């Protein structure tokens, strides 16, 4: 009887663990293309027919570095070494420009973060040799940066020899890592490149414009930049950031820009003088306020380049706008009773909303915004 219970317990446990690691029972109903994970049309538990490690387009788990565990203990059975005390959070902070979470968690399905051992088998002698084994996978993750960073490949730079393992390591590591952060990476606002291009020597690049206007994440441009991008690899203990510029080919220099500016000609960026930051009001005479400032250019101007000039008529963009359903309070001003009955043109002469509304139709000596036809509300 005891044996039967034991078998049931083991079965229950194994099934339980499997379910926990699976991407979710009904994930087939989600909007994911099956072929992004499976090679066959009808994957089963026994034959999941995984595609070989897609590193791109698979990442669905994005946590902020601060939300992650400070310390992760990697404790795989090993006769030579004790567990590795991995400072996860600080590594997560450092990896912002190195592919982000996906640099390590490269095969995440929705919801749960998969364990490495889900795909990477612990034994080197295995059926599917196309996917690295667990030892190889772990070491490659660490070594690819660490050997570039410190030129060290010695086991002891991460592992504690089994003879030196103490019970207090966990507490010591926790203490050591508590509150330890990578200083925030400061974003430049403007970078001026002085190039060799004769027809236009200067390329003025406004970093924050690109980030804000085009809603770019760090990794959209800084996808594979390791520590050595900023730190002096030959002197890693130095706090100073390196000033030596990398030697890059012409192609590499333009690669990042070309991912969006492929169709633009040289003069788009290369000019004979520095250019001022783009200012919608200065350039077009129409200031972007509260709502519109948060939109990216293509929301109004469409993706066709060069951008066409729009008129000031709201309806030219807000095509579905109807007077009957319009609620004035979205503008931040809730109209009081008599005013809400009026037509738009009664205050906004000629339906021109770019100029101040007038009160002269009904009131004498009333000036907006000194006198308001309603109450200011938050938007």
């Amino acid at each position, binding site marked *: 009887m005891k044996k039967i219970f034991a078998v049931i317990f083991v079965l229950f446990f194994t099934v339980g663990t499997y379910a926990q690691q699976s991407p979710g029972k009904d994930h087939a109903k989600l909007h994911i293309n099956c072929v992004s994970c499976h090679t066959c049309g009808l994957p089963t538990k026994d034959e999941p027919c995984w595609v*070989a490690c897609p*590193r791109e387009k698979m990442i669905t788990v994005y946590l902020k570095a601060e939300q992650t565990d400070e310390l992760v203990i990697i404790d795989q059975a090993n006769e030579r070494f004790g567990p590795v005390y991995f400072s996860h959070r600080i590594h997560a902070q450092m990896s912002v420009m190195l592919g982000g979470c996906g640099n390590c968690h490269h095969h995440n399905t929705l919801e749960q973060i998969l364990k490495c051992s889900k795909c990477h088998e612990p034994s*080197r*002698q295995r059926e599917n*040799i*196309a996917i*690295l*084994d667990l*030892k*190889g*996978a772990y*070491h*490659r993750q660490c*070594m690819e940066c660490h*050997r*570039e960073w410190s*030129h060290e*490949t*010695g*086991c*002891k730079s991460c592992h504690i020899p089994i003879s030196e393992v103490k019970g207090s390591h966990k507490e010591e590591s926790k203490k050591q890592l508590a509150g330890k952060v990578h200083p925030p990476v400061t974003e430049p606002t403007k970078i001026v490149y002085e190039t060799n291009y004769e027809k236009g020597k200067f390329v003025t690049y406004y970093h924050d414009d690109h980030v804000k206007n085009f809603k770019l994440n760090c990794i959209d441009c800084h996808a594979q930049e390791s520590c*050595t991008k900023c730190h002096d*690899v030959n002197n890693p203990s130095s706090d100073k950031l390196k000033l030596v510029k990398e030697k890059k080919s012409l192609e590499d220099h333009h690669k990042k820009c070309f991912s969006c500016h492929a169709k633009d000609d040289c003069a788009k960026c290369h000019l004979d003088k520095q250019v001022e930051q783009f200012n919608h009001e200065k350039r077009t005479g129409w200031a972007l306020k509260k709502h519109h400032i948060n939109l990216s250019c293509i929301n109004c101007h469409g993706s066709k380049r060069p951008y066409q000039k729009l008129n000031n008529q709201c309806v030219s963009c807000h095509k579905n706008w109807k007077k009957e359903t319009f609620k004035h309070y979205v503008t931040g001003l809730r109209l009081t009773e008599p005013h809400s009955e009026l037509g738009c043109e009664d205050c906004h002469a000629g339906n021109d909303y770019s100029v101040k509304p007038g009160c002269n139709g009904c009131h004498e000596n009333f000036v907006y915004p000194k006198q308001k036809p309603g109450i200011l509300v938050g938007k």
Partner: protein
Amino acid sequence: MSGKSRRDFLKKSVAIGSVATGLSASTAKAGPKNILSEDRMGVLVDTTACVGCRNCEWACKDAHNLPAGNLDSYEDRKILETKRRPDQTALTVVNEYPHGKNSNLPVDVKVQCMHCDHPACVSACIVGAFSKQENGSVIWDTDMCIGCRYCMAACPFQIPAFEYDKAINPLIMKCDFCFNRTKDGKLPACVNICPVEALTCGPRHELIKIARNRIKRNPNRYVNHILGEYEVGGTSWMYLASKEFKELDFPDLGKNPAPGVSESIQHGIFAYFVPPVSLYALLGGIMWITKRRKELEEEEKI
């Protein structure tokens, strides 16, 4: 090492002799092994992943009962400043080269026997001590080896080494694909220890697929070339790299099997009994001329 021994060699010689003298050969050998079987094993060395820790060097020595020293002592990277070759004391070595494309990492290259599909050493060995096994490894029988070192001269990768320093019973030494481990179902020692799995051991055809796939997925990481896929008719050990292989001291060998040249010359000369026939013809000619001259001299005397 292999099933062969000096006794087998003598038996074979007797058998061949008996066939030649018209006696029946009851001990005739079975047909040749399927040395180029579909499932023959190989190893894919990804030099872009290798970190140059040299654990493979230690494991190799340890598995072959060579003085290996302490594994910790292999962490000293100074040894990588000089280029080394595999020899009788180290059957595999790792060399370091300046960085390849898109990286400032050095390129570390493990060197050992390539275990050719058409091995020149097997062709050159005059006592038949060398053989290509069905699992892909090229091994040799130390009992049969007479120490002629033809294998060393024949090898296009200059791999076999000789224990010159040993006065008594010096042996040919080279990587044997850990034949003693693989026959028991274990992985080669170097493959087993590699921390980053830069060495992938598996069926050769599968490794080629994996290698192609890696190049396809990471065109920036690799040059589009699998060394050993076609070189000298294909080898069991194959390489991926981030820079041209000639910059990593690999010889530019072409696609023809290495024994092809030597064997065609040798076989060409000996075809259709040309050497014995021409030798006897020459000797016969000399005999005839001498005889003729004597006859003339005697005629003159008369």
